[in-house]
């Protein structure tokens, strides 16, 4: 993985309240900074974008308030694209269009805003999804923390795929597309006052290609979920609750990178509770598990996909862990507030 942590360029200008007032300053900000960064085609700006007709449209929206704005492996701009693209992907959809809404705190350096927007534009281009509409607001100092971004995604469901948390069934294999705990610990490692230098970068990346690779399994893909806030523990519990199907996870099979394990030990965190932005869990019927793993490993995002457990009818709605020493415990829903503002 390459570490992208763009250093803001030296630029003394700052965002003013007037940049969000809808007048000449707003037009200037859009024309000189936002639109070029997003690779928008020149032309009149309309109030709304039209979309081509879609057979099976999917929509999702998400707000991003991560602090700090830049972290190893990404920034709020790329995260705002990946987060929404991935939410669409978890319902079996490819992204068709994105809407981007900015809430900027007065006084934010224009250079920083430019870095974020360029990163957002690049992430959208990489994901092959255009930004078709958006909005920019500026609020007074202290009314926001530098920059909040909301992205809304429209997607097209891939034929045959209809994954849902409610569709997990007993005797599904639980597959994980990559290592866990990277995003949350990467963001934490940059927090002021935390003072640990870790060789950790966020896993933030778009997952729709990984889902496309799974499309041949069609309805066999029972459930997809990206374990973001609340980590894998929350995702597994949500699926267990929605489907009424229990799961048994093998602790020894969980891919927790060494630096993540070390950082979590140091900070008293559970890697199962730490957020991810570039992996997914897939529930597929046991006989299809090897096909699914092969498909996932065929794309870079899923190169280290592994089987981490299976579902069971033995304890409906409950997720259990076989511990390394050969005992068992329940994996519970995390309470929250462990790591504020990681996405």
């Amino acid at each position: 993985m390459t570490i992208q942590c763009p250093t803001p360029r030296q630029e003394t200008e700052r965002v003013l309240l007037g940049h969000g007032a809808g007048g000449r300053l707003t037009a200037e900000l859009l024309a000189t900074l936002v639109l070029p960064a997003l690779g928008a085609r020149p032309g009149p700006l309309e109030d709304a974008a039209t979309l081509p007709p879609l057979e099976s449209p999917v929509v999702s929206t998400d707000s991003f308030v991560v602090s700090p704005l830049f972290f190893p492996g990404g920034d709020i701009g790329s995260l705002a694209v990946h987060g929404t693209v991935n939410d669409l992907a978890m319902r079996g959809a490819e992204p068709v269009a994105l809407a981007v809404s900015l809430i900027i705190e007065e006084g934010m350096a224009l250079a920083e805003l430019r870095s974020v927007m360029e990163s957002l534009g690049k992430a959208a281009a990489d994901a092959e999804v255009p930004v078709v509409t958006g909005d920019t607001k500026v609020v007074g100092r202290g009314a926001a923390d530098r920059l909040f971004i909301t992205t809304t995604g429209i997607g097209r469901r891939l034929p045959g795929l209809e994954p849902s948390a409610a569709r997990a069934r007993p005797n599904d294999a639980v597959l994980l597309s990559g290592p866990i705990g990277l995003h949350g610990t990467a963001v934490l490692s940059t927090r002021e006052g935390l003072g640990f230098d870790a060789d950790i970068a966020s896993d933030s990346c778009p997952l729709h290609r990984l889902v496309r690779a799974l499309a041949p399994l069609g309805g066999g893909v029972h459930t997809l979920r990206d374990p973001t806030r609340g980590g894998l523990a929350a995702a597994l519990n949500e699926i267990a609750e929605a489907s009424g199907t229990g799961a048994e996870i093998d602790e020894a099979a969980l891919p927790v990178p060494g630096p993540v394990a070390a950082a979590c030990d140091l900070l008293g965190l559970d890697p199962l509770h730490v957020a991810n932005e570039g992996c997914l869990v897939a529930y597929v019927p046991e006989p299809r598990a090897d096909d699914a793993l092969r498909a996932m490993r065929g794309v870079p995002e899923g190169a280290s996909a592994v089987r981490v457990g299976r579902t069971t009818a033995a304890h409906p709605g409950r997720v259990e862990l076989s511990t390394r020493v050969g005992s068992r415990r329940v994996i519970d829903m995390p309470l929250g507030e462990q790591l504020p503002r990681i996405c």
Partner: protein
Amino acid sequence: MRYLDEYRDPELARHVLDRLRRTATRPWRVMEVCGGQTHTLVRQGIDALLPAGMRMVHGPGCPVCVTPLETLDRAMAIAARPEVTFASFGDMLRVPGTRTDLLALRAGGADVRVVYSPMDAVRIAEAEPEREVVFLAVGFETTAPANAMAALHARRLGLANFSLLVSHVLVPPAMTALLADPDCEVQAFLAAGHVCAVMGWRQYEPIAARWRVPIVVTGFEPLDLLEGVLMAVEQLEEGRTEVVNQYARAVQRAGNRRAQHLVEQVFRITDRTWRGIGPLPASGLELAPEYAAFDAARRFGVSGLRSAEHRGCIAGAILTGAREPTDCTAYGTRCTPRTPLGAPMVSAEGTCAAYHAAGRTATPTGSPP
């Protein structure tokens, strides 16, 4: 990873468990003193793998749990003052006081900040001279040296806007108090490895001799705990009552002299009331007279504190190992990590929180197999 993976190895764990099963002939009761050890035991389900009849008794070593209610209420009264920036370890934020908690105070506008080190609080005081920065200095012998260092630095820097609300506690007096209780069932102790990394284990030798209990200085990884239990059981079976060191990679008999010296410079021993347990003589640390200027309790006179525990909480019996969380009628119903009645349900080291996180329930039908 070195120093981590090898202490979580399933093969080695099975091997130690086999030895333990071959060694134990009686239903021994072993107490792990530290809440961090409790969490490893419960998270890994180690207590469920012990030989039939043998039981781990969970000890009082959860600093958040034993911090007196009166200290918490005082902390909240200070944190609520407009000129105060209140810095604390994250664990303390959700601990319920008599009326509220620090998290609720923060939501209401108080300047409460989570720090991972007391030195961070000193840095805040340096950077924001217009704020009165108060650090909540709680914990066992483990956190005392770093807190002492913070006071020392603040004095060196001449910081007039930094103070500590101190409520340190010491392990050996608590062990003695437990043993002096005629109902005490504990037959051996796993002493907390990190406390001993600072203090060494000489203090435990008179306890082992006087009360005829084996004490094993033990680490925190699954294999540390299994090995600690085995070393305790071997002594019990052979009738020995020595202090032995399982955590040899971190602990020496004399401990860390420099850290001890720091603590001696800044603090002095005092009587302390433990939440849930009661007053124990010479069981705490307070700022020495030379550091009285940094005492937040003096700087911010707080009067009219009426501290009272929630009636439904059996924290005292939990902390002394007399009861299990699942014995409590409030456990998992009225008392959850979201709505804790007592501190053991809050802290990362609290026994009730450990049980709850591992999904343990009172009814045998609902518990994991």
